[in-house]
């Protein structure tokens, strides 16, 4: 009797231990590491800074990367989508044609809505192009999304027309990337504890956590990532599922584009390019396996935070970009090695 209760307690403990991803410890370890090296690191203002950097950069893109990787693909077009959707937002907000000028003067909120909708629609369009090709053929996602990346970059550049589009006099739009709720006064500075971009990021993550956990679609993404053949045999529409993965990925990335543009109050074609690789790194550090079917949105967020903490932290301790890159590369390789070695031990 006694031994049984002991066993069950041990099992519960093990259960909880397994529920907490090892990456959480890595995240805290890193925060501790940087806090020890820099006094300014573990301050409210810097923590909020990291969070905003995350939510306007790698944070949301990582979610899209995770979706693609979970279904055994990879989406390299995400950076292009960020650039394009950000550019479209900026263009619509500043477009000097009578129709838009009029709306801008009369009803800026409506214009903002148009811009945001157009940006997300663009993301959806690119995503569904990816999805259409990838769901139907056996072409590796790498090459298709790479081509789509270039197409996005082009559209973005053409819309920009070789310059940076600046957005002035739209405080509501600036609020998306720079504003926050619950401002507190610390020292002489006012710090927002609930940045809008963070709220958007969290909402997206909560929504997709729900989708992955509580809908058939989520189950099917895991299923095709785990064993495509079995999934198809069970009557799952794998083509549609794969299509939706890339469609949603495009839409998610568009949010980053909007936030990015708002934060800088300007858009250039270079914005966001390269984020796709950060996103992959974050998703993978969070626990996604290239072979598919692993990790959750929550774990991906931890991965994205780790990447952001590293980027910010090395800056804070006065290390250059270079150390940052080296560290991210090392962490990536280390995390994945540990993962694969652990899995091999379990199955062999």
């Amino acid at each position, binding site marked *: 009797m006694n031994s049984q209760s002991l066993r069950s307690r041990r099992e519960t403990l093990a259960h909880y231990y397994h529920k907490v991803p090892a990456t959480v410890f890595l995240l805290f370890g890193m925060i501790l590491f940087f806090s020890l090296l820099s006094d300014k690191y573990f301050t409210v203002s810097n923590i909020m800074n990291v969070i905003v950097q995350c939510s306007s950069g790698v944070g949301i893109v990582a979610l899209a990367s995770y979706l693609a990787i979970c279904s055994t693909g990879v989406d390299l077009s995400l950076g292009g989508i960020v650039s394009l959707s950000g550019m479209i937002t900026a263009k619509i907000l500043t477009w000097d044609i009578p129709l838009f000028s009029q709306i801008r003067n009369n009803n800026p909120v409506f214009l903002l809505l148009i811009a945001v909708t157009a940006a997300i629609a663009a993301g959806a369009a690119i995503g569904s192009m990816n999805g259409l090709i990838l769901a139907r*053929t*056996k072409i590796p996602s790498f090459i298709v999304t790479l081509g*789509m990346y270039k197409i996005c970059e*082009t559209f973005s550049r*053409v819309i920009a027309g070789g310059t940076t589009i600046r957005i002035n006099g739209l405080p509501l739009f600036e609020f998306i990337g720079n504003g926050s709720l619950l401002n507190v006064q610390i020292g002489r500075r006012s710090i927002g504890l609930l940045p809008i971009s963070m709220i958007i990021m969290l909402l997206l993550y909560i929504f997709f956590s729900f989708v992955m956990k509580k809908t058939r679609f989520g189950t099917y993404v895991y299923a095709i990532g785990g064993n495509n053949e079995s999934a198809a045999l069970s009557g799952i529409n*794998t083509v549609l599922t794969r299509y939706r993965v890339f469609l949603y990925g495009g839409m998610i990335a568009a949010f980053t584009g909007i936030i990015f543009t708002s934060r800088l109050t300007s858009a250039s074609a270079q914005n966001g390019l390269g984020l796709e690789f950060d996103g992959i790194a974050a998703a993978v550090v969070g626990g996604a396996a290239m072979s598919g079917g692993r990790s959750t949105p929550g774990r991906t967020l931890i991965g994205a935070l780790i990447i952001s903490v590293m980027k910010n932290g090395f800056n804070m301790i006065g290390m250059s970009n270079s150390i940052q890159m080296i*560290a991210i590369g090392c962490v*990536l390789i280390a995390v994945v*090695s540990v993962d694969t070695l652990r899995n091999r031990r379990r199955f062999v």
Partner: protein
Amino acid sequence: MKKYWGLLKPRLDTLSRLTALAIIFLSLVIVSPSFASAANIINVLRITSLTLMMAIGVALCMLVGGIDLSIGATIALTSILFGKFFQVGQSTASMIMGITGMLAVSILIGLVNGFCIVFLHLPPFLATFGVQQIVRGLAYLLTSGLVYSNFTEDFRFIGGGQLFGIPMPIIIAVILLLIISFTLNKTTFGYRVYAVGSNRESARYSGIPVNKTLITTYVLSSLIAGIAGIVYTSRLNAAEPTIGAEFAQTAIAAAAIGGISFRGGNGNVLGVVIGALILTLVSNGMTLLGVDSNWQVGISGVVIILSVLVDRNASVRKT
């Protein structure tokens, strides 16, 4: 008839690619009068030769079923290293030392890639991506913000000089191409590369040293990137850490257009040449036709997608 078809079928892909290349070439000749000039053709070939050097290395990795994302960073790092070495003496001796150093470091990077893939069992995409980060980080670290330039005349000859009226990069690319082509077609190592890429299990059962083959392939890819780095640095007459951010992508695109399959074991050197030529011709043609440079990137994207879409291997997925 059937007999000939059997022999022809495996070559159909190459043939159709050659046809596509010919069509692009001919239409450019017709549309743009300045295209067919000797100067422009040489220019196209010179640009192609750099793409080709990088694509050949990546193609090797793709032939064994992998990929190499680290070549751009390898070129940047080796380039910076050369700058460092060169600075020391500013002489021919330091140049030779620099070149040796470049090649040595590129081999080392290849070894790290191979180690991660073979012994840590990382997917090649992630392994070479991680290594890429580290290598580029090192490149930044070593420069500390400096740009090295103004190399000696002898060194600049490698990328900018001419031999018998032919630019050096072309000569180097052709030599490299011949060596790799020979290696793949006429050496046991080449046979092993195809065997491992085509069916790793079967290769293992045949007693082929799979791990050794994989590591050698990644080392070769990096070494070739190192050579490309020498040519590029010399041509640029400068070394900076930002070099080559898109090299890996371009190289992979050229290899994919050239019919190197991502699943391994399929494709040949000729295909890579065609792929690199198509990429360069398309962008060169657009420049000549006065197409807005902004559009050029996108059109190359369309070319990439179209070329893989028409590929025979892109069979339709069943539900």
